[in-house]
């Protein structure tokens, strides 16, 4: 046998390896056409479902029969599949996945810790036309800080690219025509291209998505987003915040600032900072009323009132009111000051910080609650993230310094906006002043924690939504809501903040 002549020209016997020869027949790895997640990186649950629906020729009623997804026809499938963990779990189970893919959770795409619901109101399905045509959609396209598809470079859309009608993402498609525009018939998902792309992710997508997800995971470990009570304009705010995070162009106060202080001054300041924390504690109340302004903030607060008063047109404040506005900085009324021809107003006189027994008090009714609540949340984060247990011992001097600087900036801006808004009732001329025109905004704060120590604070201000009401009315409404909550709390019932 050993010396037997060799067989020639036999392709199987001579040329094929026996390693892969098996008595078993081949089966597909995934139970639905287009469901192989290894070929499509970081797809969204909706993207996958839309692709499955198209490639497997499924009707709306098939969603429950095959995936356990019970939906109404009016439901926006993209919204449901993005925010409903139960539906995501059902889909994952139907596809034989061990767990819900990490990439289906919108929170995992944020570079800070927060809840994904922020992007829900208002929700609109956002997509890259080139990616979606191949049956690929990723939650990256929903993020407001991306305006273009990173690998195709085309603008992300929320409407039909041809007729600008809303995208047809409801669960009531015609079979084999999901994601087809109902107005012009434009097919946003092209079957042929989706089949061609089942084994091939868009060029550059995999690398970008892996890099991005690694970056956000790293950022998320350190960054925490403090969301206003009644957030408005969340998409724009998040876009701005992440833009700051990405570029590093931030209004940032970090511990290095504190380090340059001299040791003696620093020690004195530490005591003052701890006392400041105690004073800020009043902001936890439903309707705080007055804030005993911490020493570190006194000059800045007084400067806000003073600056505005000096900018106001002639004949807007009375002589006495003007003196109150300037008192904080110890400035005399200017010689050319022209007082208003009206009676002294008690309400206007309560707007500047009031000095009593050497202490300065700030009337918080002229601040929008989202402002001072952002400040006290910042304090809470600094305290709760510390390992020490005692109130004053919880925050390190550097953290305290950083938090108070940030609080000062937040309160000063909130006060400046609130002051102009309330004053506009008495001084309508303010609306004619371009820079000092009354407007209200709310702070979105990102807190950076390194080893449980607060190391940086980033703030973005976005306008507060108001419908047919002036800025002063918005403040009145917020104060009225505070009163109601205060009364409810007094009766032992807590009301949820909006």
């Amino acid at each position: 046998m050993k010396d037997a002549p060799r067989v020639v020209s036999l392709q199987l016997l001579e040329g094929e390896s026996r390693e892969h020869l098996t008595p078993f027949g081949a089966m597909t790895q995934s139970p639905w056409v287009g469901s192989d997640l290894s070929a499509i990186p970081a797809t969204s649950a909706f993207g996958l479902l839309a692709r499955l629906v198209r490639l497997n020729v499924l009707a709306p009623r098939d969603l429950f029969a095959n995936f356990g997804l019970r939906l109404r026809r009016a439901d926006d499938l993209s919204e449901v599949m993005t925010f409903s963990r139960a539906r995501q779990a059902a889909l994952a189970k139907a596809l034989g996945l061990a767990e819900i893919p990490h990439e289906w959770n919108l929170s995992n795409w944020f570079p800070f810790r927060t809840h994904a619901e922020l992007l829900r109101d208002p929700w609109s399905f956002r997509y890259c036309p080139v990616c979606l045509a191949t049956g690929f959609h990723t939650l990256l396209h929903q993020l407001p800080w991306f305006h273009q598809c990173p690998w195709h470079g085309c603008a992300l859309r929320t409407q039909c690219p041809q007729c600008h009608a809303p995208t047809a993402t409801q669960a009531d498609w015609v079979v084999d025509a999901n994601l087809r525009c109902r107005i012009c018939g434009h097919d946003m998902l092209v079957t042929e291209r989706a089949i061609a792309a089942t084994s091939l992710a868009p060029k550059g997508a995999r690398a970008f998505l892996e890099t991005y997800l690694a970056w956000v995971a790293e950022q998320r470990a350190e960054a925490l987003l403090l969301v206003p009570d009644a957030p408005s304009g969340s998409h724009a705010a998040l876009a701005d915040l992440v833009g700051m995070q990405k570029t590093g162009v931030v209004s940032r106060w970090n511990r290095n600032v504190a380090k340059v202080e001299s040791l003696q001054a620093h020690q004195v300041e530490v005591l003052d900072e701890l006392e400041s924390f105690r004073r800020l504690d009043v902001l936890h109340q439903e309707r705080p009323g007055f804030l005993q302004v911490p020493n570190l903030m006194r000059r800045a607060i007084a400067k806000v009132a003073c600056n505005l008063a000096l900018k106001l047109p002639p004949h807007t404040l009375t002589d006495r009111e003007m003196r109150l506005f300037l008192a904080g900085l110890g400035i005399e009324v200017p010689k050319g000051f022209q007082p208003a021809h009206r009676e002294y107003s008690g309400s206007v006189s309560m707007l500047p910080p009031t000095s009593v027994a050497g202490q300065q008090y700030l009337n918080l009714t002229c601040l929008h609650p989202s402002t001072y609540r952002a400040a006290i949340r910042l304090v809470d984060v600094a305290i709760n993230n510390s390992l020490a247990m005692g109130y004053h011992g919880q925050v390190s001097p550097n953290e305290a310094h950083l938090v108070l600087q940030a609080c000062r900036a937040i309160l000063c801006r909130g006060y400046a906006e609130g002051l102009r808004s309330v004053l506009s009732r008495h001084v309508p001329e303010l609306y004619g002043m371009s820079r000092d025109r009354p407007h209200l905004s709310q702070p979105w704060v990102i807190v950076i924690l390194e080893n449980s120590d607060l190391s940086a604070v980033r703030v973005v201000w976005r306008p507060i939504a108001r419908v047919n009401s002036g800025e002063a009315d918005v403040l009145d409404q917020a104060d009225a809501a505070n009163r109601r909550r205060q009364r409810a709390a007094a009766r032992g019932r807590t009301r949820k903040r909006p």
Partner: protein
Amino acid sequence: MTDELHPMLRARRPLIFTRPAERLASDTKNSIEMGANALWLEGFARFGKTYGARQLVQSTRWRPFPMYIAEYSYTRPTKPGEGYFANGLLEQHGQVVAKTALSVQSIMRYTRMLREQAQRHGAEVVSLIFNEANRFTVDEYENLLTIDNELEKYVRTFHILINQCDASRYGPAGIDKRPPRHLFGRYFTTTHSYTGLLWDIPENERCQQALSDVALAFREYDEELIWPQGSGISHTRHFAAKAYAAGWRLGTQIDLIKEVINDIRTEHGLGAVCEWPMQTFEHFVYFVLVRIAGENPDFIELTKADIRNALMRACYLHIEPGYQGGQE
């Protein structure tokens, strides 16, 4: 756990490349190159048609074009419908079938699945192998035609229809006479007759084949099937280490094996042996290697009694065409 067992001791024993499969590959290649739509593959039961076709799935060098090949077994439904046909293929492919789907949806889905797989494998030709195609009626061919028509918009198709020519229980085939012209032209123009392992080299193959089919099949166990991978230990060497060291191979006793087979055949009124069905060949090899050689550390070579015993254990006679039964 199973992978730790020697392949010959597992529930499913290893496949080997055989010369009949090689001939099938050659005919399939020629048919595809010629432009045929299907190959009508026929042969007796247990001769190895299914595994021969499976070898085509698992090997690539014979293919004239990049191909995606899938294999199916067709059941015998009482009311074969379009939906049943497509759903059956989907399910056999490991796909979850939408219970509420209309037949047209199932067919669309099935063709898309094949196109997806073709895309994934970079295939230019999609080939479906139908086991038990002898159960097909005109309706099934029409269903296959529908799938072909849909697929051919995007990719070429070529099917292998495995027909068991002695499946008398169900009649010779679902189609009694000459099939309709549109079906005949597609599926019945090229035929391959699958044989067992031939004992003699066909005259027209002597230029490329120096050993008989049986000798080549023995050589697979003697030299080609290695376990563990990369160890260089063939299956024969594993079970008959002492004999192997002394130069014994399955192939060295091929003449004696043929002699014993002919003796048995003569005793039962059968003519001289010309081919060996794959089933009894494989069972014979298993019994020789695992039971006779593997259980005897001093095994040196097979005796006539060993061979006769192994052939009886492999039920050699029972599936031989022409065997009428009787005392063994």
